[in-house]
């Protein structure tokens, strides 16, 4: 290994401009992945700088992890190498904002929270409640295809991105898609980038489709004593003309989190369902009337929530699903299932957790089939690895998959956080090989240690 520090100071600083690179230990530690601390942090001031830094790294055998606020760095397998944290904080400009066209193009460093604030001044938003929206950059959210319960009605970043610019290890900034809402010109490379965890290129500009802010949002919370009541409710709602914007099921542990913000030692015995409707006065009024009828017929007891209490709950929930907000000993899992299997899966994972004396807090996106599940060690931390394996098996048996979003560094060495490789994995390998032949971008971090 050459003396990377010296090499970089002289050459990389010339590429990205001095003052855009730091070797300070504390700055580097902020972007550590598990026990790996990068040797420097580069802050590109433009897309071209980012591309130049990537090219330099690729030519010199350095490994780069794109990042911004370090909210999702704990997700992924431990990288094989990690020399440079490429922090995109400085790329935080709004490029083309066309509120009347409902489109915008932005740089990746803007945080979702401040972006929503900007949009709300014109009565717009992107209907995305990704984990830790206040702390997460749009680039990070898109690179990980992060979404929250609003996915039920509005989809994921995948459904909102119209195009993007990507910095490649060849030192180029390439464009895919465009800024119009319908476009089929050329291969949709944005789809490849979305959810690729920075292993193919670095997103340096994103074009989003925008949506009008709904005039009113109302939430109802219901208590369910059993999971089969919850299942019955979910079926009835999906079978009705209602289109809730979010609908979640919380186990007793999850219910404690949405109320208190942290797991509590002795959570209540019941499950909780939160459901939100968005629209005009007439629409939300009718929706509430209908949902109360459905809840009563399914055997649920409900109560309205003050808007503030509801907003607080939804945002605590988003934070709950953020890897960066979990404690070092916690295990945060994301389970994706055919939506009808969610309740029985929870039954199974609760049983496993109970037997192993491990804390269990879950949020199920009803109607979507995505579950965030936090396991906390109560007696023996060593149980976490084994129970995660058993829970993964339960997900796979039900036709789904499990990703470990966050776990103690020690545990990560003994588990593949993404699970087994599917039969299209050879194509993914070839894609990675073609786009990043020297393994510059987050080497080893993604599925199959790509």
């Amino acid at each position, binding site marked *: 290994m050459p003396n990377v520090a010296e090499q970089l100071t002289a050459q990389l600083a010339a590429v990205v401009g001095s003052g855009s690179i730091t070797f300070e230990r504390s700055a580097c530690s902020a972007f550590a992945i598990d026990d790996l601390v990068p040797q420097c942090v580069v802050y590109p001031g433009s897309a071209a700088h980012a591309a130049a830094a990537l090219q330099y790294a690729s030519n010199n055998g350095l490994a780069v992890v794109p990042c911004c606020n370090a909210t999702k760095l704990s997700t992924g397998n431990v990288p094989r190498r990690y020399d440079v944290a490429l922090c995109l904080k400085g790329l935080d400009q709004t490029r083309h904002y066309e509120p009347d066209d409902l489109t915008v193009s932005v740089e990746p460093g803007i945080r979702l929270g401040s972006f929503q604030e900007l949009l709300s001044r014109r009565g717009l938003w992107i209907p995305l409640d990704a984990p830790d929206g206040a702390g997460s950059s749009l680039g990070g959210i898109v690179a990980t295809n992060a979404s929250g319960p609003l996915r039920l009605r509005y989809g*994921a970043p995948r459904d909102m991105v119209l195009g993007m610019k990507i910095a490649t290890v060849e030192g180029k900034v390439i464009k895919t898609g465009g800024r119009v809402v319908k476009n*089929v010109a050329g291969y949709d490379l944005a789809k490849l980038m979305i959810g690729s965890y920075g292993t193919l290129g670095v997103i340096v500009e994103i074009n989003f489709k925008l949506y009008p802010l709904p005039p009113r949002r109302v939430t109802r919370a219901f208590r369910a004593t059993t999971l089969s009541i919850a299942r019955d409710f979910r079926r009835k709602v*999906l079978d009705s003309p209602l289109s809730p914007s979010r609908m979640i099921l919380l186990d007793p542990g999850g219910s404690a989190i949405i109320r208190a913000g942290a797991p509590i030692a002795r959570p209540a015995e019941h499950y909780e369902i939160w459901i939100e409707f968005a629209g005009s006065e007439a629409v939300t009024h009718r929706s509430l009337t209908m949902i109360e009828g459905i809840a009563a017929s399914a055997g649920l007891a409900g109560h309205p929530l003050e808007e503030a209490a509801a907003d607080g709950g939804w945002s605590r929930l988003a934070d709950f699903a953020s890897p960066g907000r979990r404690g070092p000993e916690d295990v945060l899992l994301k389970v994706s299932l055919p939506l009808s299997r969610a309740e029985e899966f929870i039954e199974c994972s609760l049983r496993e957790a109970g037997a192993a004396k491990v804390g269990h807090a879950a949020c199920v996106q009803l109607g979507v089939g995505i579950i965030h599940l936090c396991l906390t060690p109560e007696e023996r931390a060593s149980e976490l690895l084994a129970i995660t394996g058993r829970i993964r098996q339960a997900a796979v048996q039900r036709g789904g998959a499990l990703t470990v979003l966050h776990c103690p560094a020690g545990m990560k060495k003994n588990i593949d956080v993404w699970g087994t490789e599917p039969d299209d994995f050879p194509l993914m390998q070839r894609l990675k090989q073609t786009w990043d032949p020297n393994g510059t971008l987050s080497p080893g971090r993604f599925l199959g240690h790509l």
Partner: protein
Amino acid sequence: MRKIPLDRLKQIAGAANVLWRPEDLMLYEYDGLSTQSAPDAVVFPSSTEQVVQIVKTAAQEGIPIIARGAGTGLSGGAVVVEGGVVIAFARMKKIVEIDVENQRARVQPGVVNLDLSLAVSDYGYYYAPDPSSQKACTLGGNVAENSGGPHTLAYGVTTNHVLGLEMVLPDGTVAHTGANYWDRPGYDLTGLIVGSEGTLGIVTEITVRLSRRPEAVKTLLAIFDAIPHATRTVAAITARGITPAALEMMDGFTLRAVEAATHAGYPMDSAAVLLIELEGLREAVEEETEQIEAVCAENSAREVRRARNAEERDLLWRGRKNAFGALGRISPSYYVQDGVIPRTRLPEMMDYIGQVEERHRLRIGNIFHAGDGNLHPLLMYDSRDRGECERVTKAAAEIIAKCVELGGSITGEHGVGMEKSELMPLLFSADDINAMKKIKSVFNPRGFFNPGKVLPTGKMCGELRVHTGAGGQLAERG
């Protein structure tokens, strides 16, 4: 001439399922784009395994493979460029599984778009993307082109409704992308394959999302005495944050042709109409109807009619969806363009199309997805008139160039295909295109899946590859 292993193909698919006589191949010389080129053979497989065998056989001989659904595409995607074997999916049209509780269906690529919606309608569900050709076009073709349709304004295009694919790669391996649940770990190859126009793999099975039918639907016909009134209304509806399920525009010239053919009730003396559909809860539909009516009035609409029942609604839509056919009654040929612009630029763009029409002494009809800014100018011509053919091609190129200038795209839903491969440099730099070539090299390294499509060949720099004249081969100018 290349040798086509007909015996082997017959062995694989059965003798009755291989066409090779010139008179049998004539049907497969074209799709919806006015261009003709005959394949060497057409094979109708009935299973993924047969597709694998066909691909392996073709691979050995280096014979191009072109997948084909119903041949309704409008960019020449299913037409061969330099011969080859067409894999036609007419026999792979099974709906393999309908899973209502999970809102999913698994289908073979030959299933007709509308047939899927009909198959699930008893459960109160449908498949949302609805190309105008939905009575004929196949889901395999929709996946290849990432097709849209009038209702994709609110619900998204094909890519937003496809979760997983089974596909055959050039070496005969079968790969499964995505899943029937969201967010399978790994690269989103499904998202990449949808819209790749048969150049990356041959799709043999598709997992789609089914959508719940709305409680209420209201269809409005807004009538205008001037085109700018209609285009300004579209921009105003978007800017007010009202998202109708569909927002279609038809100019006076087109609607008169449509009315004569379908008697849908369009006013013969108007300059333009907007066909607007609202869906959702009854209350939402009621409110939005009032809002739309107000916007229309503010923008000088002559009248806004509400379809009173399902019959009237169907009639209005029949007019819209059969419009291309209706134009055949008034012009021997027409050339449909498919450009996109930011919606606020619609008034400006329609003026420009008017100028092009005048400059080139042509008739251009306009019927399009106004809410998305997705234009479909229809350029009328007579293929026997050589001068007119040339003027049509020029006019189309100018319209597309203007779309790009306004910040739009060269195609919104019809695909690049053969037609627009040489226009890609209007939108993309050499670096951008190289990145796409790299993708292609991963999936289709020898390039024998649908050769000569999507990516520029460099042979006819900057020109539309369309043959507007009668008969003969693809025009090769420039």
